[in-house]
């Protein structure tokens, strides 16, 4: 029960924020939370690979970019219907993950990190060459994605659609983690040979996990581009992939809600420290280092420790 209570509380709090009397800062606060939710979804999808499957993907931002460009390319062809755009974005991401994953999963450890990076870099340069969609400069959407002709992604709609997808994705990932599929993945992370010898094809499970994570991240890309009304290759830079990794690790890899906490912390810290000083990275960088040295297990790991201390 407690394991459901914490995330449920977070989601309820996010749902209630627009009802608060926020005054002049209202628009900014809602935009910021929506951004945190989108990156929360992306980080969650990375945690499926990293936490469940033990696969450190350094190219996860590629799927954000694929989702974003699916919206942009369809938009340029006058298609902005969510029932078409969203499945295509998710399928395209999953297809890219399956094709590259089949090669990448031949390698282990740091080589896997680097080969996923290599594929993401290839995609990054390929997107920059799409001159009919703006090339390096990016592409501005004519219109946001609509559902059956209704502009559901405008204003507060975007906020609640983000929240809805985030909750759905979170529940889906929890179910996935608890299922036989999730248990096989976690077992393979600990001892691949043993799971193989039990008759499971570990490679197929990992590939499926990559495709699922990629599809969810493609969805995050759709939401991201709809918030910005702008798609550019910079969504897929390796720095962005690194940032997603930071969110997951900072939150605590493998716990799923940790990824959400990590994404929220990074987005809010960036904004908060950015207001404090233009050199906010001088504070943020050491914070990251200290969090590794002293908070093992990430944000998701600290909260239970505090609860235990208070109970004593």
């Amino acid at each position, binding site marked *: 029960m407690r394991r459901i209570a914490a995330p449920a509380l977070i989601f309820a709090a996010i749902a209630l924020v627009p009802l608060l009397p926020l005054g002049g800062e209202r628009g900014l606060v809602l935009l910021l939370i929506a951004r945190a939710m989108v990156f929360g979804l992306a980080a969650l999808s990375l945690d499926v690979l990293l936490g469940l499957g033990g696969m450190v993907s350094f190219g996860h931002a590629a799927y954000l970019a694929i989702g974003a460009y699916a919206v942009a390319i369809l938009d340029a062809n006058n298609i902005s219907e969510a029932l078409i755009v969203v499945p295509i974005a998710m399928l395209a991401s999953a297809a890219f993950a399956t094709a590259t994953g089949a090669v990448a999963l*031949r390698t282990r*450890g740091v*080589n896997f990190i680097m080969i996923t990076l290599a594929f993401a870099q290839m995609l990054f340069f390929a997107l920059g060459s799409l001159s009919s969609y703006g090339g390096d400069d990016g592409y501005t959407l004519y219109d946001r994605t609509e559902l059956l002709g209704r502009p559901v992604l405008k204003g507060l709609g975007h906020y609640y659609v983000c929240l809805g997808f985030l909750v759905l994705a979170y529940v889906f990932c929890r179910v996935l983690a608890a299922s036989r599929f999730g248990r096989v993945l976690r077992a393979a992370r600990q001892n691949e040979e043993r799971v193989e010898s039990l008759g499971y094809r570990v490679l197929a499970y990992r590939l499926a996990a990559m495709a699922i994570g990629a599809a969810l991240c493609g969805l995050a890309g759709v939401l991201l581009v709809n918030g910005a009304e702008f798609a550019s290759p910079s969504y897929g830079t390796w720095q962005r992939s690194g940032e997603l990794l930071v969110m997951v*690790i900072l939150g605590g890899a493998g716990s799923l809600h940790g990824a959400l906490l990590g994404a929220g912390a990074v987005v809010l810290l960036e904004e908060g420290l950015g207001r404090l000083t233009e050199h906010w990275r001088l504070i943020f*960088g050491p914070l990251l*280092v200290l969090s*590794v040295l002293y908070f093992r297990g990430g944000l998701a790991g600290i909260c239970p420790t505090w609860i235990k201390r208070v109970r004593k």
Partner: protein
Amino acid sequence: MALFLVQALNGLQLGLLLFLIAAGLTLIFGVMDFINLAHGVQYMIGAYFGVMFAGLTGNFWAGLVLACLAAGALGLGLERLLFRHLYRRSHLEQVLATFGVILTLTEAARTIWGPAPLQLKMPEILDGSFQLMDGLRYPVYRLFLIVASLAVAGLLAWAVNRTRAGMLIRAGASNAAMVEALGVDIGRLFALVFGIGAMLAGFAGVLAAPLVAVEPSMGDNLLILAFVVIVVGGIGSIRGAFVAALLIGLVDTLGRLLVSDLARAALGASGAARLGPAVASMLIYLLMALVLAIRPAGLFPSPGART
């Protein structure tokens, strides 16, 4: 033909520069099993040190020596204060912590030296060009860069293969625990490897400084290229890093030439202008994916390396 020759020399020069950075990275990874994302930042700081010390002393060579020493000292300081506590942690935690170091040092450089790119003036004796062949001149400084990098690479090869410390480093790269069990002070060995790596990266930074804009983000892309080099070469292998660095340098520069020619032949001028640069930028990553798909441990996997 002349263009080809110039590009081949440029590729050689890029490859050697990459080797200087990748050599430290591959040693640090091979011996300490430590992913140091901050290695590119050490190259950037080296370039800034070069600008600063050359400005203070008014002499390029004094600046070069002082910058190398300072870069090595900075590396040793980081190792003692922080990295040493991360060796036994998971790769993920190392990635997070060193990412934090990247953010901190990049921003520190931006705060201290400003966001605008700086320029390091090359020494007058190397400023100019010489006749390579008929109607073809090549800058002296680039040739100096090639010679200096080759000399340092040779020195490194000698040190690693012929000296006692080098023997311990090689032993550490194949089995650090065994070296420790044999009574070697592993902490000092690690510090030595780190200091050498930091100095090489700093040296590369100063050498590159007169040719590129010295700016806080100059290390970012080189870090990725250096990682490509060590993964293609096989982690922990100096020889692999050398071969892979030259390969990557040549493929990147000559590939750009070749791809744009091929694209022009196949697609016409407008298509080539569109597709050429993208395909050319992709080449090294294609090469890396190809190498890893065929040889998952790289070209020269070091025996007993933990990948």
